[in-house]
Every structure is written in C-alpha cells, then in structure tokens.
C-alpha cells in the first residue's frame, strides 16, 4: 500500500502539541535568519533606509556644534560677518533631517510591509495545503490570531523599533566621540551620570514591567469574567446570582486597579527622575565647565554645546529598553508563525501522479475502513460500485457514516484499509486537483462567501462563463430567485450569505455544483426543516439536477431516494443492504423500516 497508513495521516505531530505555549522551538539565530529571508526581495529600500541612519545622526548632531560656533565666533566677539551662513546651515540641517527621517520611515515601511504581506500569504497558502483534519483540531480563533495579531506584532516592531535602534546606537557613539573630542575631562564628568541614568531606567523598567504584567493578567481576568458573564447572563439571572457576580467582578476590578496604580506610580517616577537627572547633568556641566572655562580649557560655546549634546544623549538611553521589549514580543510571534509554517500534514501526492479528466467506467469502494480517531471505526469493510451514469442513494440513520464516505471520495481524508478506485485505479494515484475536479459537492450547510452571486457560483474557476451560470441557474430554478433581486448575478452576498434565506442558499449551492459540469455529483441532502414552499422548490431542483448525471446522493427524503437507480443502506458504519427500491422493499429489512418511518413522519407533519 505504498506507505499510506493511519499513523502518518492522522496523528498530530509532536511539535503541534507545543502550540499552546509553543515557545523555545527555534534558536534566535534561526528565527532571525528565516525572518530575514522574507526581507531579501526588498533589500534595496532597506539598504536605503540604513544609509540614511548615520546621515540623520550627523545632521542632528551638527546643530549644537553650530550653536557653539555662533557663540564663540560671533556672539562673544560681537561679529556679524558670516553669521548668516551659520543660520543657513542650521536651516539646512533641519530640512535635511526632516527629509532624511521621512525617507527612512517610508523606506522601512515599504520593505517591512511587503515582507510581512509575503509572510502572511505564505502562512495562508500553507494553511490551504494542510489536511482538513488540521482545521478540525485547531479553533478558528487561534488560526486567525496567527494571521492577524502575530503578524501585526512583527509589523509593530519593524515600524517602531528595529531600524531606529541602529540609529540610536550610532547617535550615542557619535555623541561620545564628539564630547571626548571637544573636552575629554568635561565629557567624562558628563558620562558619570550615564550609569546612574542606566540604573534608574533599568530599575523602574523592571518594576514597570512587573506591574504591567500583573495589570495585564488582571485585565485579562476581568475581560474574561465579563465575556463569560455576558454569555451566561441568562443563567446568572435565573439563579439570582447577580449580586455575587457583581462582587466577583468588583474584586477582580480592585486587583486590576491596584496593579494599575503601581504601574502609574512607577511610570511617573521613571519619567520624573529621568527629567531630574537631565537637569542635574546641566548643573554638573555648569559647575565643572565653569572651572574648565576659567582655566581657558574650553570656550563658552563648547559649554553651551555640551548642554545641548547631553540632552540629545538622554532620549535614546531612555527608550532603548522599551524597544527591546517590543522586539522580544515580535520574536515570540514570529516563532508561532514559523511553527505553523513547519506543519507538514499535507495530503500525500505521488510525484508521478496520474492525470484524470473523465469518468469512463465507474467508482468502486473496495473493502474500505476508516476511523477519525485510532480504532474507532466509522466505516467497516464497505464495498460497492457506482457505475458511470448511475445514481446511487446512500441511506441510513444519523451517524451511520454517510458523510464520511464522500469525504473519502474527494480525499478530504484517506482510507485506512482497503481502497477506492476510479476506472480501476486507486484514487491516491491521481493528482489531487484533477481528482477533485471530477466531483461537485453540495454540502448540507451551503457555505457562501462574501462577494456577489456570480462569484459564489463561479468560485474562481475561469472556465465557468455567464452562459453556464445561467443554464445551471435555470435548471435549479435559481433564476426565479435572481429575478427577485434587481441586480441579478451581481447581487451582493453578505458574510455567510446572511442576507439570503436558507432555501435560497441551497439553490445557489446547487447552481454552483452544476455550473462546474461535474463528472460526478455528490449531494448531501439537507435535513433542516424549511417551509413547505421552499421544500417543494428544492425537491424540484434536485429532481432536475439528477437527470442523466452520475451521482452519489446522501438522501433523507423518500422522493429523492426513489429517483436513484440503486440504494446503499449503511448501518453503524457497515453496508447493510443494497439494491433497487422494489428489491429492498420486498426484502423487508432495514430499508423497509426506514421507509415506514418516513411515511410516519410525513403523516405526523
């Protein structure tokens, strides 16, 4: 059996189980390398942005120097000649800095946004290739978080931190060099503040992070209490639990308030103390610089410039640890995305898979066994045939395994024992895309996409033209529905088709199936109650759909069953009976009972 087995098809991989907490699977180096691979196509704008970094730093650091020159060469000696030039150069640095900073942001975003779009698409495309069972195991919400919040966290880091952090480092080192050149001793005195500043920042950042973490936890509890209470409000009211719920909420709210208070407190202290240290540095420069200047070691201009530089020195130091935290968050998100990308529960396809476009002979189920979990068999040893041109009805009570059977046929799942053959060849030998194109499936709940009626019938298949849509629509009498909406095929469909009735949605799905001119039609008849008028409409549509069409129908209504050539009765995952309506009625077995039940229902309603 060429390596198809239950283990590879249905056991989630070990790595997947780490998904909930999921971190620490990759080393930082590998993470960075794989992320950078997405930036590679956009390296030119990125390099451009990197080039602007030292230029911006340079221009911004030129300004204090200009003031120094103005003071020493013009203000103190009261010399107006050439002063205009300095003002012009100063203006130049402002304009230049503005333009370069703008270019820097723009180029970074250009590269970053496109790279992230690629990453997002890559994750999405990968999800398109994963097995259906993957989606049953992973809640939609979690997958959505990957595609939105996690990508956004990286985006946030790119737009706010990563690139400017390089700029910050350049600025800081440049200031150090400049100050040392201007006056080594005064520079060292100024730098004496840095360890203090660093320590204060680190301490309060730590306290802040702790407070923030606690307030996040409290807020999460608060919100989930709210969410749960809103969902369960009826129960809360039924059991007169309002007072107690309110008290519980108030208690969590108080925890949240307390942690928020400490966050506010540390934040205020950090902010105020950094400002204070800045002012004290000025005092220090005045005091020590005055001594230096009396000994003629520095000029007055240098002293003023020092004060300006010291202020430019503070901002990056204050922000560095903030940026670091953003980057860490982004790395965690990146890791979760890469984990998803590394899932490889794909549908196996041979390299030399066969093409198929027509059904010549028929479909054969040969001793098929299938279980979703381990050995809990949903289907046991099922064998039957659907000849070309034949219409087969699948009948059985709820949970008999009818829907599983057509899922196997279209390879949503693979059989565990036995085989399904089309024209004598195992379906796993065909190309998956080709195989699926043979079928058109109408599922119980007609899923509609946001868009218009046309796109919901075409489903992106370029070979389906308007004429085909109209023919399909007229066969299932969807055209009557279309006539009701003035914009016809362009009629807008809201999310999940919520602006159509259940019956209309069914008809759209019918038309969709027929428009694709399937070789085999798979129809999973809806069991839901609809009003009698729509019911008649749908019955008529089904009748016309089945004319001269190879079909496998999971049937619930007697009228549908009787329109088929042969009936296969499933019972607890096993094939109980098969034959024509007359044959099975004469046997007086399970089918006979089912028909009686059906009549009882009809009478009861």
């Amino acid at each position: 059996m060429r390596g198809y087995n239950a283990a590879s098809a249905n056991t989630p991989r070990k790595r997947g189980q780490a998904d909930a907490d999921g971190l620490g699977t990759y080393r930082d180096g590998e993470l960075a390398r794989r992320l950078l691979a997405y930036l590679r196509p956009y390296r030119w704008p990125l390099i451009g942005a990197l080039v602007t970094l030292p230029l911006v730093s340079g221009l911004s650091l030129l300004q204090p120097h200009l003031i120094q020159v103005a003071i020493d060469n013009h203000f103190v000696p009261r010399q107006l000649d050439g002063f205009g030039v300095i003002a012009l150069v100063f203006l130049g640095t402002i304009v230049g800095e503005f333009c370069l900073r703008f270019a820097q942001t723009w180029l970074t975003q250009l590269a970053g946004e496109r790279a992230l779009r690629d990453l997002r698409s890559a994750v999405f495309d990968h999800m398109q290739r994963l097995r259906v069972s993957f989606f049953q195991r992973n809640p939609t919400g979690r997958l959505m978080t990957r595609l939105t919040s996690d990508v956004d966290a990286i985006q946030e880091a790119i737009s706010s931190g990563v690139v400017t952090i390089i700029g910050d480092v350049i600025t800081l080192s440049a200031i150090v060099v400049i100050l040392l050149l201007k006056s080594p001793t005064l520079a060292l005195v100024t730098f004496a503040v840095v360890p203090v500043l660093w320590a204060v920042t680190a301490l309060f950042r730590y306290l802040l992070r702790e407070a923030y973490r606690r307030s996040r936890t409290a807020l999460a509890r608060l919100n989930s209490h709210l969410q749960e209470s809103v969902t369960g409000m009826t129960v809360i009211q039924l059991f007169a639990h309002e007072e107690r719920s309110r008290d519980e909420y108030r208690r969590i709210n108080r925890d949240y308030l307390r942690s928020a208070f400490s966050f506010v407190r540390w934040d205020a202290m950090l902010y105020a103390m950094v400002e204070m240290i800045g002012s004290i540095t000025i005092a220090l420069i005045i005091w020590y610089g005055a001594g230096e200047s009396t000994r003629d070691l520095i000029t007055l201009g240098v002293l003023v410039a020092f004060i300006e530089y010291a202020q430019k020195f503070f901002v990056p130091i204050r922000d560095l640890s903030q940026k670091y935290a953003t980057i860490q968050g982004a790395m965690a998100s990146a890791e979760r995305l890469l984990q998803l990308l590394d899932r490889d529960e794909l549908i196996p396809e041979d390299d030399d898979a066969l093409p198929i476009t027509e059904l010549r002979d028929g479909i054969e189920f040969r001793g098929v066994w299938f279980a979703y979990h381990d050995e809990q068999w949903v289907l046991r040893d099922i064998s039957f045939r659907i000849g070309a041109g034949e219409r087969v009805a699948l009948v059985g009570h709820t949970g008999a395994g009818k829907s599983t059977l057509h899922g196997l046929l279209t390879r949503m799942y693979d059989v565990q024992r036995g085989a399904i053959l089309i024209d004598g060849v195992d379906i796993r030998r065909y190309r998956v895309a080709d195989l699926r194109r043979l079928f058109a499936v109408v599922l119980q709940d007609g899923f509609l996409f946001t868009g218009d009626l046309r796109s919901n019938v075409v489903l992106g298949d370029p070979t389906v033209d308007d004429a085909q849509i109209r023919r399909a629509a007229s066969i299932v009498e969807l055209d009557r529905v279309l006539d009701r909406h003035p914009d016809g095929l362009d009629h807008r469909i809201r999310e999940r088709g919520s602006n159509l009735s259940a019956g209309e949605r069914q008809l759209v799905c019918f038309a969709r199936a027929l428009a694709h001119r399937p070789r085999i039609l798979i129809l999973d008849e809806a069991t839901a109650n609809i009003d009698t008028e729509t019911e008649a409409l749908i019955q008529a549509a089904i009748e016309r759909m089945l004319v001269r069409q190879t079909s496998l129908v999971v049937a619930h209504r007697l009228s549908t069953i009787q329109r088929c050539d042969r009936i296969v009765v499933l019972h607890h995952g096993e094939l109980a009976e098969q034959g024509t309506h007359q044959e099975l009625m004469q046997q007086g077995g399970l089918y006979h009972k089912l028909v009686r039940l059906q009549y009882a229902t009809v009478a009861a309603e």
Partner: protein
Amino acid sequence: MRYFGRYWIWFASGSVFLVATSVLGLMIPRQLGAAVELLRVASEAGAPVDMAAIGSLAWLVVALAVGACVARIVSRVLIFYAGRLIEYDVRNELFGSLTRLDPAWYQRQSTGDLTSRIINDVNNVRVLYGFSTLNLVNTAVTYTVVLSLMFSVSPRLTWLSLAPYPIIILTMRLFTRALYLRTHAAQERLSDISTHAQEAIAGVAVVRAFGMERVISERFRAAGDRYVDANLRLAVVRGALFPFVASIGSIGGLIILYAGGRMVIGASITLGEFVEFSAYITALAWPTAGLGWALTVWQRGTASFDRLMHILATRPAVADGEDTLAPARLHDDAFRQPVTFEDVGLVWEDGTEALRGVTLTLPAGSVTAVVGRTGAGKSSLVSLLARLRDPTSGVIRVGDVPLTRFPLRRLRASIGYVPQDPLLFSRSIRENIRFGELARQHDARGENGERAGAGRLRLEDATRIAHLDEAVTSFADGLETLVGERGVTLSGGQKQRVTIARAVLLDPDILVLDDALSSVDTETERTILEELLTIMEGRTTVLVTHRFNALHLVDQVVVLDEGQVVEQGTHHELLARGGVYAQMVERQQLEEALSA
C-alpha cells in the same frame, strides 16, 4: 461628565502640582542663563570667575530639579489615579447594568461584538480621563508659564519665535486627523484580511471540494496588497509626523539662533538670556506636539463615553415595578400554588408569533410534559415562567397573583431552571453545582450578616440524583475539577447533568427542565427522571422533551404546534386518541428500532 465631579479634588490638586512642576522646571533655564552670563562677563573682563556664585547656581538647579521631580510625580499620580478610579467605577457600574438587562436586550446585541465594544470603549474612556486630561492641562500650564517667562526676557524675541506656532498647531491638527483617518482605513483593510481568512478557514470544505485553493490565496494576497497600500498611505503621515514633531524644537531654535543671535551681537539681549530663551522654546515643543494627539483622543474618548452611558441608561424590560409585592408579604408556600396561563401570546420583535392563545393550568405539585416539533414554542413557553421575558398578551399567575407582581429575584430563586443550552462557567464542578446556592448564601450574608441555613438537600444528594457521581469520581480532582478551557471538557450529557444538579440543589418550588436530558441515554434519562419526580413530590415540575419513553410517569402532556396547544391529557389518553402525539410516539419507536 459626572465622574469629573466625583473626583474633582484629585484633578484639582493634580493640576496645582502640575503648575508647580512647570514653574520649578522652567526656573532652571534662568539659572543656566545667569551662569553663562557670569562666565561671559568674567571672560570679557579677563577677571576670574566667581566660583562660589557658580556653585550656588548649580546647587539651585539641583534643588529645582528635585522639587520639579517630586511635583511631577505627585501631579501625575493624582491625575492618573483619578483616571483609574473613574475606570474602576465605570466598569463596576457597567457590569451592574449588564446584570440587570433582560435576555431580549442581549438578543438585540451580538455577544462577541458587545463584549469587545465595551472593552474597547472603557479603554478609550480611561485614556480620556488620564492621558488626555493631563496633556490638556499640562499644555495650558506650560504655555502660560513659558510665555510669561519669555516675555519677561524679550517681548520682541517672543513674538518672533512664536510666529510659526499657529502654523505648527494647525499642521499638527491636520496631521493627527490624517493619522486618525488613515489608521482607521488601514484597520478596515486589516478586518478585510480577517474576513478572508475567517471564510477560508470556516469554508475549508467548499474550498477543497472545488479546488479553490489558488483562487482564494490570490484573493488573500490581493487583500494583503490593499492593506500594504493603506499602510503605506499611513506611513506617509507617520513618516512626516515624527520628524515634524522633532523639528518643532529645531525651528524655534533656528529663529532664536538667527534673530536672537543678531540681538546678542547688537547687545539688546545678553548671551545668558539667549541660552535661557533657547531652553524655553525647547520646553514648548512637546506640549505643542501632544496637543493635537490629546484632542483626537479626547474626541474618541467622549464618543466611547456616550456609548457606555447609553448602556447605563437603558432600562431593563423585565424588572420589579411599583406594584411588586413586598417580600415580607409573601408566604413560604407562595410558589406552591397552581400555575395558570391565561390566553398567553408571545410575539418576537421581528413580528413572528412564538405563542398564541395558550391557556393552561399546571396544578400545584403536578408534573407536566411539553412536547412538539422543533420551533413549536416549547422553550418560549417555559421561559415565561422565570420571566426571562414577559408575554406580549395574556397573564400567567401563581395562585391568584400575576407573575409580574412577585419580586423578580424571589421568583427566580424559587424556580429551579435547567436551560436547553447546558452553559457552565469556567470554575470547578463543585462551584458550578453550587452556583445558585452560593448566590443565596452571598445575598443572605449581605442582608443578615450571617450564613444562610443549609437547604434540605446536600451537594452529594444533588450529584447522586443527577447521576454525576460516577463521572465525578472518574476525574482526578473530583468535584474540584475545573470546567472549560483550562479544565476538562465535559461531554454534552455530563454538562446537562451538572445543570440538573445545579437546579436541584436549590430545592426549588418549581422545577423547569427545558429539554435537559437530550444528550443523556434513554436508560439514564428514565432513572434521573424517576429520582427527580420523587424529590419533587409536592412541587410543580415542567419538562420540555423530545423523547416519550418516560412520559407515562408524568401527570399531563401538553402538545404544542406552531405556538398553540393542540392536544392535552395523560400519556395514555393521548395515545388512545391517535392524534399528533400518538404519531410522534410511533415514529420515535421506529427510530429507536432502527438505530439499535
């Protein structure tokens, strides 16, 4: 703005300290200027600098810095604390309102949407009262102090350096508006992406069956492209905004350098004043930049505030009124009376009729089963008993008293209700079973300051009656096992049995089972019912069901169809009649025979 009133003292004293911060902080440049002037005069005269004077100036700067630091901490703490206190109050009041609003109100909102809207709105309100207030006050204070200081140095230079400010403020306003609009646009593109992804995941079966993978990937990529475009439009604003903010200070610096420089050279101001002035204009940069942002946040905050106040102002449709009986006037057996429905009708808001002309008596101490097809109105009928909604027409009475005259919470506390949807909370199984009991104890403690007496039934009895004991012992933590996301996932049948135990433990006068045993196998259903009916001896029980095996146990069966009572009688009477009920029973027997 009643919350400002509640905490006005915090805001007022916070503002006072904010003024102190500004005054103290802005006195530093003057000392700086004085020091520079001392140095310049000394160097011009070639005389030694008065180091003692410099030293005292430096100490003064340190003192001012420390003072400003303390004032800044106090002001921020006061104003931000007040913002947090308001947030705390708003949350509590909001939650209180939510617990009073009736199910019909909730049905009009979509749940996920409601919660996230509230969370988002409360956030905006917090920012409104904290950040926004602080920034607006701070801007006003800083401007006042800085301007008066600047004027005291040189009115001419002040006017000159302020010249670009109207334009700067106007530009900032435009920037923040554009920033807001484009952020909004980008967010909408992002929600398109979410929609696409959501559909691709939810509709995965259709996608695979029709081989749409490539098409849908292309659509997703196109949505991604539109998002990139929107983000790049946003990047234009952001890219210009931040350097612009940074250059506000520099532009002021340039004006002072040029105009002020000429004044220094022309000796109309001193070098020290020049240095002092430069520092003032720098101090204006951030408040100016923050002003536009604070205004935008303010607008968003007030809009959110209005939405929240709207919820707070909504009056619940089901509530106690003026004619509600005083609890003291209710006898202990007030609910052990026959329940009568008199010509009861219920119409949904969209105009569809759920119940029409239902007239019915549930004799005191009797057991009634309500049966009928899906959508026949069974759940609606029993939900009226607990006043989850009130009937559109007709009256329901317990004894002689209309349901609406009972105190709502007293009424509900007397009813043990097992809803169709077995909703449990993410707590331990024990707490879920004791949900109603704990609420009772809680209320009693509040009123009398002492623990309420234990009911007739103990927890063990309730778990036994609901056939939970076996399931519970199979969990490692027994009754302490957590339910839900972080605990075990109970099966549908287990959940239903917990909800039954929860209702039974209340020892109710009226027990309502709304299709409460649908996920339990027939055998267990029968034993649970038998036990329930034994302990409910003498109380009124109503059960909605789809199964008929155990209905010979009940006193009367009511058959509903399209909101009307079509048949009524004992199980055997109705079987003998051979009507709708008899057909439903026959059909079910066949079904059972088939799936056996």
